[in-house]
């Protein structure tokens, strides 16, 4: 079935990204927007835009009825959910299909299977995808104590229904186990409506590496290489790069194979990401989770592969076979992305909404900006604080790091607080240049970097 008109059920930079991909393929894009997003860039670029509700996401971007109603009323034949909001909501994907809208993503079954972390672990295990030493579902505190003795400290509590870094607790020793258990359990209940937890060994010297995969509706699945997203704060990624530096070649291959195996096993189609944690000390990697959607950091993969992931999602949704074979994949050079947020690092990275009065992004070869911002745009308090993704690419990692430093130095945003100067300090650090960091590096170094940036 050929698509003609796509409803964009998201906002911000990803809405802009989807509109661009639609236009690149000659498709019309209809953007559903909330009241505070009326003047957004995606609305300006869209072929048509429809106000779907007030600022509160529950009455707009998180409302399946309003989104589908607007999509049908504007005679769209497909809906792209972007990331966040309803992108990994299996019921929503099903509802779209039932109303004759092609959901631009995997089918509801795949979303559901990977959405439950325990089920995802079981599927991974069945495909010989390595799992971190850990438990199945924990029944109660006594059960947690018994499992903790097997796994050893430090360990992690994770919400079975969780994802995106929410509902995770680190437990240092047996004394804090009871408190951590009750906190994690009630946090999981509040965030996901399900208090089921499981435990996992906490890997102190870890890197976060994820494999981008893409599949079509005809059973073809390929990987597009991996990304390293180890620079995180509170489990939120800040800087991502492709390919992963310092990964032993056999591990890289094994990881890519594991990701493709898992995706193929569940009949996965559209773009997806299989996340792994790499234990640097032991030289092992373990399955974390699979994200059944477009990833925020997808541009770094696009920069090194020349493959348009969002356009491919749309083509696959329309039933087209993959245009790429695994043997045709070439990864060239190195790309790095920084997330520029409206936040105040010196105030605990508190979100800092406000109106942008001056907007001067860097320009030049190998620089890509994915953003919805412009001078005059109001960063509203309703949504996340992401203002732009700055992506650079160069022939190798050292050149990419140099280009990133230049680009960050050029970037000027006025009118609100951002993490720009904090990012400049991060990329100026010798550890960053050397590529020697783990998932705790940023958290550990943030206080000193903030002091230096001030």
């Amino acid at each position, binding site marked *: 079935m050929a698509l003609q008109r796509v409803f964009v059920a998201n906002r911000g930079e990803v809405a802009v990204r989807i509109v661009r991909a639609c236009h690149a393929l000659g498709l019309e894009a209809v953007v559903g927007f909330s009241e505070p997003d009326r003047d957004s860039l995606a609305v300006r670029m*869209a*072929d*048509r835009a429809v*106000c*779907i509700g007030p600022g509160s996401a529950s009455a707009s971007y998180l409302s399946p009825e*309003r989104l589908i109603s607007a999509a049908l*009323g*504007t005679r769209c034949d497909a809906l792209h959910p972007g990331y966040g909001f309803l992108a990994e909501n299996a019921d929503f994907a099903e509802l779209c299909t*039932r*109303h004759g809208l092609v959901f631009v993503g995997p089918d509801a079954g795949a979303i559901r299977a990977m959405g439950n972390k325990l089920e995802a672990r079981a599927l991974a295990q069945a495909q010989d995808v390595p799992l971190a030493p850990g438990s199945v579902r924990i029944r109660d505190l006594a059960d947690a104590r018994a499992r903790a003795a097997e796994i050893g400290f430090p360990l992690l509590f994770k919400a079975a229904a969780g994802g995106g870094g929410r509902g995770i607790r680190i437990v240092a020793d047996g004394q804090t186990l009871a408190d951590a258990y009750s906190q994690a359990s009630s946090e999981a209940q509040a965030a996901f409506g399900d208090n089921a937890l499981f435990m996992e060994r906490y890997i102190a010297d870890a890197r976060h590496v994820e494999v981008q995969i893409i599949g079509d509706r005809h059973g073809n699945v390929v990987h597009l290489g991996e990304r390293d997203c180890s620079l995180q704060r509170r489990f939120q990624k800040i800087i991502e790069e492709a390919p992963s530096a310092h990964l032993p070649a056999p591990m890289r291959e094994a990881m890519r194979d594991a990701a493709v195996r898992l995706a193929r096993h569940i009949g996965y189609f559209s773009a997806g990401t299989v996340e792994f944690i790499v234990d640097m000390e032991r030289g092992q990697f373990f399955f974390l989770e699979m994200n059944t959607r477009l990833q925020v950091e997808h541009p770094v993969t696009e920069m090194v592969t020349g493959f348009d992931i969002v356009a491919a999602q749309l083509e696959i949704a329309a039933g087209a076979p993959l245009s790429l074979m695994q043997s045709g994949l070439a990864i060239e050079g190195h790309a790095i992305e920084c997330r520029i947020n409206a936040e105040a690092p010196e105030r605990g990275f508190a979100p800092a909404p406000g109106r942008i009065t001056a907007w001067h992004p860097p320009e030049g070869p190998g620089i890509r900006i994915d953003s919805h911002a412009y001078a005059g745009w109001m960063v509203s308090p309703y949504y996340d604080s992401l203002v732009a993704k700055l992506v650079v690419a160069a022939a190798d990692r050292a050149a990419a790091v140099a280009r990133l430093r230049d680009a960050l130095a050029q970037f000027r945003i006025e009118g609100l607080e951002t993490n720009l100067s904090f990012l400049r300090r991060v990329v100026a650090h010798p550890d960053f240049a050397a590529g020697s960091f783990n998932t705790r590096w940023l958290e550990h170094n943030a206080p000193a970097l903030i002091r230096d940036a001030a």
Partner: protein
Amino acid sequence: MTSPQSDRLSAAELAKILELVEKSDFDSIELSIGDFHFTASRHGAPQRTTTMADAAPASVQPSSPLPKSAPPAAPAVAATAPVSAPADDPALIAIKAPIVGIFYVSPEPGAAPFVHEGDRIEPGATVGLIEVMKVFNAVPAGLAGTVVRCLVADSDLVEHGQPLFLIRPEGV
């Protein structure tokens, strides 16, 4: 909001299309240009022809206030109207859509509209329905006054906050 498609046909263009269909061997024609959707048939059962119903077959329910069926050989046309700017009269107040959805002027297909231009309304009066995926939401007037203008046609998609009626409030 932009509308790149020139989705408005002139009456003359429409008449020309009808004339061509009449002279042709076709029994029926369906035409889509941007948001403009047009169906006409010469014989047989009347064809239901609305933007919403065609786009959402799943929502066709016996109880739905579907817009009237087109009489045979008389094409019904439904095109999504652009948001009309409220008249300049500052004394007028707009009743706005509380939710995005499909707007209906009457409680059932074929029934009389809830309100006409010139009607006097009470705050609690229902002035229309907005369907959001099979759920029909009554739109209350919210103020007492006289309906000066209806801004939206039956079965049009309305946006959240879109003006539906212009009301001259009581005592102004």
